[in-house]
């Protein structure tokens, strides 16, 4: 049984707990700006948590000239392999959803990897706008 990180925008209350949870999981400092999920306000009092959708035909994978991105068969998430990435930022530009992030100050390209199968954002989302569901 595979699982998928799902987004239900109608439930998001814009509390940005997911951003903080992500930043604490992935960056030592817990700086929300370094988070791989970003809550976007789309209208008054309406928010959408934006994070990698793990596309089947992923533009980032196609755009990468050095084959540094591939899908982890266990989690189904596309992962950036830092040992191959040369930070050309092709994937950042190619992603139609703008979900590749550049982490400063190292300028490393990062994206959601569903925390290796235990996404912190879904764990802490108080309204289940983000869920890690069996599909």
């Amino acid at each position, binding site marked *: 049984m595979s699982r998928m990180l799902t*987004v*239900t*925008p*109608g439930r998001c209350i814009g509390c940005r707990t997911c951003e903080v949870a992500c930043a604490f999981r992935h960056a030592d400092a817990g700086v929300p700006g370094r988070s791989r999920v*970003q809550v*976007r306000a*789309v*209208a008054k009092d*309406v928010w*959408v948590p*934006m994070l990698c959708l793990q596309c089947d035909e992923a*533009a980032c994978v*196609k*755009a990468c*000239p*050095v084959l*540094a991105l591939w899908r982890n068969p266990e989690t189904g998430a596309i992962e950036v392999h*830092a*040992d*191959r*990435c*040369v*930070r*050309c*930022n*092709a994937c*950042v*530009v*190619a*992603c*139609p*959803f*703008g*979900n*590749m992030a550049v982490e400063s100050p190292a*300028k490393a390209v990062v994206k959601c990897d569903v925390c290796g199968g235990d996404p912190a954002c879904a764990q802490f989302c108080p309204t289940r706008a983000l869920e890690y569901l069996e599909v």
Partner: protein
Amino acid sequence: MLNLDINGRRVTVRKGTALLAAIREAGFDVPTLCHHEALEPYGACRLCVVEVREPGRSKTRVVTSCNYPASAGLEVETESDAVVHTRREVLDLLLARCPGSSVIRQLAASVGLRRSSYPPDQNRDNCILCGLCVRVCEHLGYSAITLAGRGGGREVAAPLKEPPPDCVGCGACVRICPTGNIPLVDRDGMRRVWDRDFEMVRCTGCGRAYITREYLQSRVASSGLPASHFELCDECSRSRAAQTMYQHMVLGDKEASHE
């Protein structure tokens, strides 16, 4: 698989592993400046030196670990007197070459060097000739720049020292340079790197100039993705996708529930 000893600890690695990778896998650290895992090891900065003893030999040797293969029975010391002495000497020379580089100064300070014992070269930039920029450019398939000249005149340069015709202005060289020595200026919708001016494409959403036209064309051609994927900057792509999700999933849901 093969076994070797690193700082007295037995380590098992795959055949073909470079010594540097084996050392890092074992949890020890060796400083490097010219190493990047995506690129072929080059052995230029000489900071990754370690002391090795081949099995059956009595003498040890100091070698660069990045391009030295891990082999069965090898004994490796990463902090022996010979290693510390060599590394300090290398940093002393690098500090004399690039007294203005904060990265070099920090590394030198970590071995107790505040000032080089050689006369500092004030006229030079912070290039340490590690070749990372040249190698990443080649790896990306552009090969726009190269190492030119010999001896004291060696430098990273474009062919004929003119603005490189094969450069696409992607900036990978700028980001990979360990001393931050390659200037790149984005201003008024233009990018200047390697003395060449590039026209930037502006995001159709916010108008921010975010990629050079040459790099965009190159990525469209080699990825097979439609050019429309590259029309918006990442920020605008994200905002637009959020809007789309809202309209389809929130407003769409409400309309469906009214019916």
